[in-house]
């Protein structure tokens, strides 16, 4: 068994993914995506892949978030373009 911690992480991951998909605010989606990546790194540590976990914690939670933040800073924050 992967244990309750593993099941909880998977539920958290799915919840985060759905929130990222549903929210209309791109900045909020980026922040939730960072949390998602961090929990994904923990899951990989639980699955005995520490190299992947370190890389994901730095790349997924760090650099991808920064890339999205920069892109949002240079374009627009909301998804709706009614204005």
């Amino acid at each position, binding site marked *: *068994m*992967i244990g309750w911690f*593993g*099941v909880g992480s*998977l539920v958290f*991951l*799915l919840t985060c*993914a*759905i929130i*990222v*998909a549903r929210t209309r605010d*791109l900045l909020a*989606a*980026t922040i939730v*995506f960072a949390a*998602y*990546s961090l929990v*994904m790194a923990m*899951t*990989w540590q639980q*699955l*005995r*892949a*520490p*190299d*992947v976990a370190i*890389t*994901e914690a730095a*790349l*997924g939670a760090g*650099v*991808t978030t920064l*890339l*999205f933040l*920069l*892109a*949002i800073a*240079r*374009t*627009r924050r909301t*998804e709706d*373009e009614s204005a």
Partner: protein
Amino acid sequence: MISLDLFLRLNYLAGIMLFLIGLHTMLTHANLIKKVMGMNIMETGIFLFMVSIGYAHGTLSPIMRRGGPVQGLTYTNPLLAATVLTGIVIAVSTTAYALSLIVKLYEQCGTLDVDRLEKLRS
């Protein structure tokens, strides 16, 4: 026939569901940045699936002791970890390139909406 065994493979199921959520995001949202986010979720879903394939209960991470592999102990599959490590780095460079294209597109057209871009073209 889909059996109930599906729910005993929670990690595989979660990977597939993340893939589907990402795919749905990519298909239904008009905003380009949201599409890139959906692509990232798809990728992590696939990575979760692949790392889960390599895992086995009661195993160690594939880092040996100084004297070589310990007899009688099993390790997780290092091949899948190596492949996923490669994939993560490629995913980030794909994201970076896509976002730089999107920023340039916004400079040129002033919109991130795919439908508006279609109208602008015609």
